[in-house]
């Protein structure tokens, strides 16, 4: 990414938020929505545009779980380990996903197709145990269904 190209994409975001108090987190949300993560080059540009030291930006990015410094996989798999899911067997589901994809939580598969995350409560405890692929929620998942769900996305590419 060349810096001019980045500047152009950042322009509307910065224009919306510049001058508003405490806007850094909102800016980072907008950046992550646009790029999928917060690339270092973008943070560098942000630092100049918003006149915020780079260290301050990184301090915030690394504190909050939501912000990512690495590009995410094509499909994001989230396995819920909230209390209700935990009691109803989510750890088994997580193990199964890990063994199918051979990644640990927080990692992306080598082919860049899947990113595995552990989340604490997706807010649909009635469906426990729950896993989510991109924006689709799968409820009452059994160990046997995991392969089926994952392979559906594998095939689509």
């Amino acid at each position, binding site marked *: 990414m060349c810096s001019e190209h980045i500047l152009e994409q950042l322009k509307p975001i910065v224009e919306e938020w510049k001058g508003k*108090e*405490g*806007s*850094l*987190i*909102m800016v*980072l*949300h907008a950046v992550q929505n646009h790029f999928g993560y917060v690339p270092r080059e973008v943070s560098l540009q942000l630092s100049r545009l918003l006149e915020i030291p780079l260290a301050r930006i990184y*301090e*915030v990015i690394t*504190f*909050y*779980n*939501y*912000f990512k410094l690495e590009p995410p996989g094509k499909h994001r798999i989230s396995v819920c*380990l*909230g*209390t*209700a899911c*935990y*009691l*109803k067997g989510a750890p088994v589901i997580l193990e199964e996903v890990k063994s199918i994809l051979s990644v640990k939580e927080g990692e992306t598969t080598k082919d860049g197709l899947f990113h595995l995350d552990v*989340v*604490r*409560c*997706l*807010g*649909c*405890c*009635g469906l*426990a145990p729950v896993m989510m692929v991109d924006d689709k929620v799968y409820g009452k998942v059994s160990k046997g269904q995991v392969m089926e769900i994952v392979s559906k996305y594998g095939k689509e590419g």
Partner: protein
Amino acid sequence: METDRKIILLADTEQSQQDKLRDFYTSFANQIKDKGLEDAVSLVRASDIGIYGKGFAVKILPRGIVYTGVKESDIGAIIDASVKGQGTVERLLFSEEPKQIRIVLRNCGVIDPESIDEYIACRGYGALKKILSGMNPAGVIEEMKKSGLRGRGGAGYPTWMKWKFTRESQGDRKYVICNADEGDPGAYMDRSVLEGDPHSVIEGLIIAGYAIGAGMGYMYIRAEYPLAVERVKKAIGQAYECGLLGKNILGTDFSFDIDIRLGAGAFVCGEETALIASIEGKRGTPRPRPPYPSVSGLWCKPTAINNVETLANVPYIIMEGGDKFALIGTEKSKGTKVFALTGKVRNSGLVEVPMGITLREIVFDIGGGMLGDKPIKAVQTGGPSGGVIPVDQLDTPVDYENLQKLGSIMGSGGMIVMDESDCIVDIAKFYLGFCVEESCGKCAPCRIGGYQMLNLLNGIAEGSGSLEDLDKLRRVALAMQRASLCALGQTAANPVMSTLRYFEQEYREHIVNRKCRSHKCRSLMTYSIIQDKCKRCRVCVINCPVNAIEGDREKGFFIDVSKCVKCGKCFEVCKFQAIAKE
């Protein structure tokens, strides 16, 4: 903007004959059509209307008439009496005193959350009109005092006092914040209110702003709830269009703006000083109190922070009067509380109950009893800051004081039912692990104490614990409670302490007998082959990842305990239940 369109909910209260409900729905729809009423009603199939075991139920809104035990032959009579006319069919009326009272959830699932007109049709923004046309801020606070409403975020601080202190503090600007950073695993009340009735929270926030003299309000919402964010955004836009937000609201001198700020996945930001730091665009770490936010909060200005559920109660209190609200509940805890009932219970979901109801009523009468055949062991309330309430305390009335006496807290409203297959040490480990992960790391008691306690618990779960560890756990917990900077650290040990209080025997079994009676702690399990049941098919031998199963078809097969990694694969693949797990 009154609408006379009726909404009819059909539900199967037995929860077992969903296919018959479809037929019932079809014939209901047909008869409505035959009578030419299809434009005047919406017919909705509901999965749960909070009544159980009473056959098919028909609920007619907005009047709220409920019929139960309805047969297909009754449909005609119901339509004639209550849809066309204003009467009722006496013999089918549902009359049992309802266990649930809906105040916070009054509009959820009833109105279209994206329509301000429907909210207004249900007397929405009536409370705002009422205060702007004749109540001064002190009067509003007085009304809140009469209601006895206490913060629903967990700590239970009286809302009126929070407002009064913020009002009395000096400052050229003041703020109100709605805390919608619902992070407890297993709780989703705030999400449901924001998604189902965003205007009630916005109205509550405007009223709070008026009462304390603030001109600006923030909604701090979890980014993990995109639909809630979208609905609130839309609702705020509609409120501006209708002149309910912005300059000179409803033609008065009162001006108020609301903006949304998103959380970014940090549990600690539910703590008020951390939340303020986060809105200021910083790392969400708490700071020592005092000064309390009511004196020096957002940008060092007086700030009142209220939870979503608290604010959703406010319009009701203003409309109906604090005295009426105070009729519900116990002496010190007024009103209702929304709980997210989950875990090993038949009907999981949101319930709104009057304070003072017993846990047993919630789990068995409303929740429909246990899921599966195992007996209930305990109920956990308050999420990672709460505790476990054992089965012999189930008849305790739920209010702030009682739960605290039992070593738990009201918390934000997660309620998780556990049965005999849940291991108490495992549960304690789960909650503590959550707090350790979410600790911001600013103060040592929380950062180090939590980690050390987790190590001790892991040792106990793996069979390497000693009885001294129980004392160590208690000592570290006490240090954390006393010395941590914020509520996260102060309460992180609660799940461990309350389980130790009621289930010490189970901890001892893990330590002394190296046994986990619920078969949850993997390291304490042993697998063996029941020779009588074994058909010698070798499936387990083939599937064992470490070749720990030895023997042959003549002599039979045995598991070599020294090689076994306790993965449980053999247990899963055996078709003859010939693997014993102890």
